[in-house]
């Protein structure tokens, strides 16, 4: 299934520094904007600064390729809006 695909991709792209490869159409995180209250925590705490706020203050993944799946954004999201896409 797709799991093995991604695992395969990981090995064949050694030039990426991050653990996972996130191309533009394969975002590292799925964000449930209908639950998001725009608290800014994910944006501020992300060590790779992959987010930028939209005009309502909600996170947009502007530098997805830098995501290291460190978990900081989703463990600190008080509203359970952020889910990893890595299967």
């Amino acid at each position, binding site marked *: 299934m797709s*799991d093995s695909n991604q695992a395969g991709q990981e090995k064949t792209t050694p030039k990426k520094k991050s653990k996972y490869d996130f191309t533009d159409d394969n975002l590292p995180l799925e964000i449930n904007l209908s*639950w*998001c*209250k*725009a*608290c*800014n*925590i994910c*944006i*501020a*705490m992300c060590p790779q600064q992959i987010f930028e706020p939209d005009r309502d203050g909600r996170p947009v993944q502007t530098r997805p390729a830098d995501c290291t*799946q460190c*978990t*900081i954004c*989703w*463990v*600190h*999201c*008080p*509203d*359970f*809006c*952020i*889910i*990893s*896409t*890595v*299967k």
Partner: protein
Amino acid sequence: MATTEKQKSDITHKYLRPQKSFPSVWCPGCGNGIVMGAFVRVVDKLGYSKDEVAMVSGIGCTSRLPVYLDFNSLHTTHGRALAFATGVKFGQPKMKVVVITGDGDALAIGGNHFIHACRRNIDITCILINNHTYGMTGGQGSPTTPEDAISTTTPYGNVEKHFDPCDLAMAAGATYVARGTVTHYPQMEKIISAGLEHEGFSLIEIISNCHTYYGRLNRKGDAPAMLEQFKENAITTGKAKKMDEQELVGKYVIGKLHEDNVKSEFCCEYQKLIDHQKG
């Protein structure tokens, strides 16, 4: 099969009550949600069934937490959560009884129940989310509001002294006491887990942010700013040992502060009494 990142990050959704509408009632960025996430991930990791967990709470922002989770939930009167929880635990000792409470709920109106639950060493895990203020009623001073801090009832600075909930619990006889902050997520999961697994009364104090009232009145900024301050002001127990009292003012000593596995637990002792008396 190893859990994937997607599964790990999605655990919380397995425990949210399907009948409740989300997002929660809390302000954007409220630490209560962070603690809630940590709690369910710990429960999942420990493998407790939903039916065996009872969450008891009193009144306050924090006390709204159990209603969102698909466990047995008891939302009680202000300050009395530990007394109700004592009835639940003593009535059904096989249940994992967790009290979610705030600083006002547990230490002011519920102060007496707090010290007596500690004294009895009844196997309840008390997660005290300390935001130094009364959030639900709009930012009044609480027993943990620091000296000089501004609240709506201490508009010229707090002249009262504050409680240290962990010291209080230790002195009163709690057998597991630990402190964390909403910023230190892995450590928070660790102490909640240890508290749940500990047989006896455990107090888990989580320093949390009320940027809406406490933060605004004391110019501490928004939620991310407050979380950042917790990071700066948190001192691990190891480091704290090397610091003097003056240096520790305004700091949060985080980590396991006390553990006693010798002192007997109340329900076990009573069961022994029953077994003996029934003969």
